[in-house]
């Protein structure tokens, strides 16, 4: 579908939450990088699941268990298609990106990292792609190395090539930055890493709803996604991994369906994906998540990114028009998803956030779980507006107007 043909009003009608007043103003939801809203198809699927089908899955002999198992595995197939994985079994359900990364660090990392090995991350990582690696590096005695960035928020690729060596065993990198919007050259990173024998994990939290994904074409080793940032319910995430890696990794959590046979002396583990899905999964939300993937696919990533870029460009053009040097943008990379951080000089982001909230505008303020990145810029935090396909130009105008008022006031 072409962006030109996108009917945003009818898309908005799929999102009941958008049609409300906040502080007496129509809600303008620009906190999409934190979590997107959910189309009615997802909400209804969740309700229907609990009203009609709910049962624990897999081993059940009865009709409800059978249906639920079928729906659950259907979502896995949808995920497979969504990211073009070779097999559905390579798609593991987790709680979100954070759990997916921890899983890889604690299984692949623990089994294959050795003292002196290096894990390479970047300066713009989310805490969820820093702390798990710090923890495992500390435990093993491996080294955490950090790719610096340029002032505009792009990765310093020259530095990357210098840091990359045969010591590098894992490169864990954000695909699109949640604080700056920067889209990193992930294909180049993957190819370079593979040349020195390192594997690559991509933090796809922000890529999921914006960028076309083809794990086979990318040849990425691990990709992590959060359902709630992809128009799906909270509590669902994906860990994609190549079978040859997943097969040789030890399990993460123990219990429930992840075993083949248990005795007190020894336990043998199940095949993927079940090996990594201990305990009763988040069945209802996984089942509903399929409708989120279908929502995105129906509109089409191409059309989505085109529209969101228009919103972003409109916002940045509006800021430029202010002609004020009291508003500073953070994240001006050439390739960006529709996320814009900024600061008004002399104004704490928290105040800006509250003033916007007073006009019904939801933005995020603070460090966005990227403290090292904030330190790089020498700031405590930013105000961040992040756009989704259901946002309109008029909403961007409302934001611009409020900011203008703030600038003019002092």
């Amino acid at each position, binding site marked *: 579908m072409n962006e030109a043909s996108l009917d945003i009003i009818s898309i908005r009608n799929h999102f009941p939450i958008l049609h409300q007043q906040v502080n007496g103003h129509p809600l303008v939801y620009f906190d999409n990088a934190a979590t997107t809203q959910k189309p009615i198809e997802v909400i209804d699927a969740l309700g229907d699941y609990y009203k009609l089908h709910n049962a624990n*899955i*897999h*081993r059940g002999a009865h*009709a409800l268990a*059978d249906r639920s*198992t079928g729906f659950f595995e259907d979502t896995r197939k949808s995920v497979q298609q969504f990211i073009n994985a070779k097999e559905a079994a390579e798609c593991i359900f987790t709680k979100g990106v954070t759990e997916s990364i921890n899983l890889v660090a604690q299984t692949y990392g623990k089994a294959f990292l050795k003292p002196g090995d290096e894990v390479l991350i970047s300066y713009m990582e989310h805490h969820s792609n820093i702390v798990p690696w710090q923890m495992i590096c500390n435990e093993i005695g491996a080294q955490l190395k950090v790719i610096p960035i340029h002032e505009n928020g792009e990765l310093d690729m020259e530095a990357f090539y210098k840091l990359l060596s045969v010591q590098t065993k894992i490169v864990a990198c954000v695909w699109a930055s949640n604080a700056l919007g920067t889209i990193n050259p992930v294909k180049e990173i993957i190819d370079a890493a593979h040349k020195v024998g390192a594997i690559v994990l991509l933090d796809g939290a922000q890529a999921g709803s914006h960028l076309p994904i083809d794990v086979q074409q990318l040849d990425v080793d691990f990709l992590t996604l959060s359902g709630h940032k992809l128009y799906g319910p909270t509590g669902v995430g994906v860990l994609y991994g190549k079978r040859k890696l997943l097969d040789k990794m030890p399990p993460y959590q123990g219990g429930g369906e992840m075993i083949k046979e248990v005795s007190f002396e020894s336990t043998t583990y199940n095949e993927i994906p079940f090996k990594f899905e201990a305990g009763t999964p988040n069945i209802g939300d996984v089942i509903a998540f399929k409708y989120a993937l279908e929502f995105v696919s129906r509109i089409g990533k191409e059309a989505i990114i085109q529209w969101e870029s228009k919103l972003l460009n409109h916002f940045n053009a509006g800021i430029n028009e202010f002609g004020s040097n009291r508003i500073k943008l953070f994240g001006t990379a050439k390739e960006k998803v529709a996320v814009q951080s900024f600061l008004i000089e002399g104004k704490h982001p928290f105040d800006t956030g509250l003033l916007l909230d007073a006009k019904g505008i939801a933005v995020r303020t603070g460090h966005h779980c990227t403290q090292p990145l904030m330190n790089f810029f020498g700031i405590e935090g930013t105000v961040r507006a992040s756009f989704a396909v259901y946002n309109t130009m008029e909403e961007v105008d409302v934001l611009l107007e409020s900011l203008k008022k703030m600038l003019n006031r002092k």
Partner: protein
Amino acid sequence: MTSTEIQNEIIEDFSLFEEDMESKLFYLMDLGKKLPEMPLEHKTEEFIVKGCQSKVWLYPFKQDGKLFFEADSNTEITKGLVSLLVKILSGKTPSEIVETDLYFIEKIGMNHMIGSQRSNGFASMIKQMKMYAFALTQK
């Protein structure tokens, strides 16, 4: 009889029960009892098709260009289903077996037996039979 004819006969038989699932299952269990006994020496680990709760043994052999199956199961209902598969597919040529569309399963209302892959050996068994046959067509 062609596999289509056999399947239609089976569908006809089951149609008597209409939507009465319990009677269908009892009937299946009776059919299972009529399945020719599988020689014990073929009921080995090698020829086991493991489902989560029910096991199926499946022993294939070729004769005069045709593929034959001996089979058994530790659960009665699966055994009944298995007996139907043997009736339909055993003694056919490999390519016939590969091409057979087992539409009877849905028509007799047993699709849930192949739905959730891990709940029984029946689904895996169908796969196995087709795989054996496919392998033979490749040679």
